[in-house]
């Protein structure tokens, strides 16, 4: 029996992987507390001249902190729009058969496969034409391209797990459809809605190509501000690292709140 020896080694695999995962993040964090001189001068494993200067710059300069605000606005807007329109559609796919339902579902999914690069230029033209260029709504709408299919997919999975008897009983009890949907059905699939929101938030937060293409000043996301800094104001690496570190924070918050649903959501939601 070499089972005891093996069972000691088992946790080593995830532990090593997590270490590998945290190293680059540590390096980013480390750099964000250094001065530009220290970064370019000596190679140090931790900041010798610890400074919060980079963070102070970000929190006091509106071109920096408005980037976060802009990103948070369009991400929230996108999450609300995507999940709201996906809910009735997912209900239709999970409960009814109608002309062309299968084709429609597959067609929706193909939109997830569309490379964002393909759409960058036409999107720029389209949103300029309708006068939405450089607005939060433009980015929020553009991101529905890949988030709506995903939300429909996740919600359909959760809804199919709810027995149809629930609907029938409610109608027998005299509920109208909107009242049933709002009072009974939505609370039943609350976990699914949470998981769908999480993924919409995530994919909208991390996308940059479309967000950058569709904004100039007013709605420019933080990620785009960063690329500008990198190219125009030379190598302000400490500032860049601090800005990067701060983009991890909202994600970390969101994961923390949905930590118990992540595994479940994947399993139930047939993602």
């Amino acid at each position: 029996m070499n089972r005891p020896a093996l069972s000691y080694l088992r946790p080593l695999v995830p532990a090593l992987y997590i270490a590998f995962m945290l190293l680059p993040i540590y390096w980013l964090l480390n750099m964000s507390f250094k001065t530009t001189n220290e970064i370019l001068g000596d190679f140090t494993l931790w900041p010798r001249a610890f400074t919060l200067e980079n963070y102070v710059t970000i929190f006091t300069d509106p071109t920096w902190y408005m980037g976060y605000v802009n990103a948070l606005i369009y991400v929230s807007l996108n999450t609300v729009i995507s999940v709201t329109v996906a809910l009735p559609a997912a209900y239709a796919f999970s409960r009814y058969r109608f002309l062309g339902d299968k084709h429609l579902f597959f067609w929706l999914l193909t939109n997830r496969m569309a490379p964002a690069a393909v759409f960058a230029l036409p999107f720029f033209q389209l949103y300029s034409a309708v006068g939405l260029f450089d607005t939060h709504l433009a980015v929020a709408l553009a991101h529905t391209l890949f988030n709506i299919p995903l939300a429909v997919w996740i919600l359909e999975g959760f809804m199919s797990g709810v027995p149809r008897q629930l609907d029938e009983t409610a109608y027998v009890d005299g509920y109208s459809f909107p009242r049933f949907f709002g009072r009974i059905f939505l609370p039943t699939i609350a976990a699914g809605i949470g998981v769908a929101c999480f993924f919409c938030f995530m994919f909208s937060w991390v996308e940059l190509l479309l967000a950058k293409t569709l904004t100039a000043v007013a709605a420019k996301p933080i990620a785009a501000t960063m690329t500008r800094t990198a190219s125009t104001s030379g190598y302000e690496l400490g500032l860049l690292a601090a800005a990067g570190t701060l983009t991890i924070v909202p994600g970390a918050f969101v994961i923390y709140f949905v930590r118990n649903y992540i595994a479940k959501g994947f399993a139930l939601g047939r993602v």
Partner: protein
Amino acid sequence: MTKTVNQKAWLFVLPVLILVAFNAFIPLMTVVNYSVQETFGDNTFFWAGLMWFEDVLHSPRFHDALLRQLTFTFTILAIEIPLGVAIALTMPRRGVWVPVCLVTMALPLLIPWNVVGAIWNIFALPDIGLLGQVLNGLGFDYNFTRQPGAAWFTLIAMDVWHWTSLVVLLAYAGLVSIPDAFYQAAKIDGASGWAIFRYIQLPKMKRVLTIAVLLRFMDSFNIYTEPFVLTGGGPGNSTTLLSIDLVKVALGQFDLGPAAAMSLIYFLIVLLLSWVFYTLMMRNEDS
């Protein structure tokens, strides 16, 4: 479950249809429109037929980009899927470490893609990066901004870092849904660790793994921001994947016709390969 036929269900789908049509159909038509026209930059367009498509399909540049794209996609799939499964298998099933593992592992998934590129850039740079310093300190000659091999190594390490967690989460979700009785029965039947994996865990994970492969396949084919920030497609064209090449043609050179034709061919390739993957895996499941 038999579903009731109800054509009014279209009303439920309508908002989704309008939004997606606005976002997908109009731009796609724009692309199709460009792909069959020739312009000289003064807003006058001429019918060009399938000229651009022929050009793109015969262009060695496109072939090279496609080949690099396929190499990249299959390499990361070959690493991320087995690695993700291995990590999911060794992760604790219950206890305080479960949420800790899940939360830390989900972290890279929520970092904006250009920040992922930036993180790896400063992590791997030979002068100021930890990885660059360590590798050079160990005697490797490593500089990903100059050596195509090092650039590929860094690119793949970055994608593994970025996306293996997704495979882990999916595989883990599949694993925790297996009732304890299956493991107990296997123990009683004298099954080896390998047999437990082969006959219990792998079959139960099949569905989520199909999804993992599909998602990773589609997304890696669409990858743009991370490699663009990390290497900018270089050195030379050595890490210029399809998307990067496309943006170079469309925005860099403003060759709208060829760029549009390339977009469509590219989109069709993703669609076709995804469809082949999907049907192959589903057929496997049914038989």
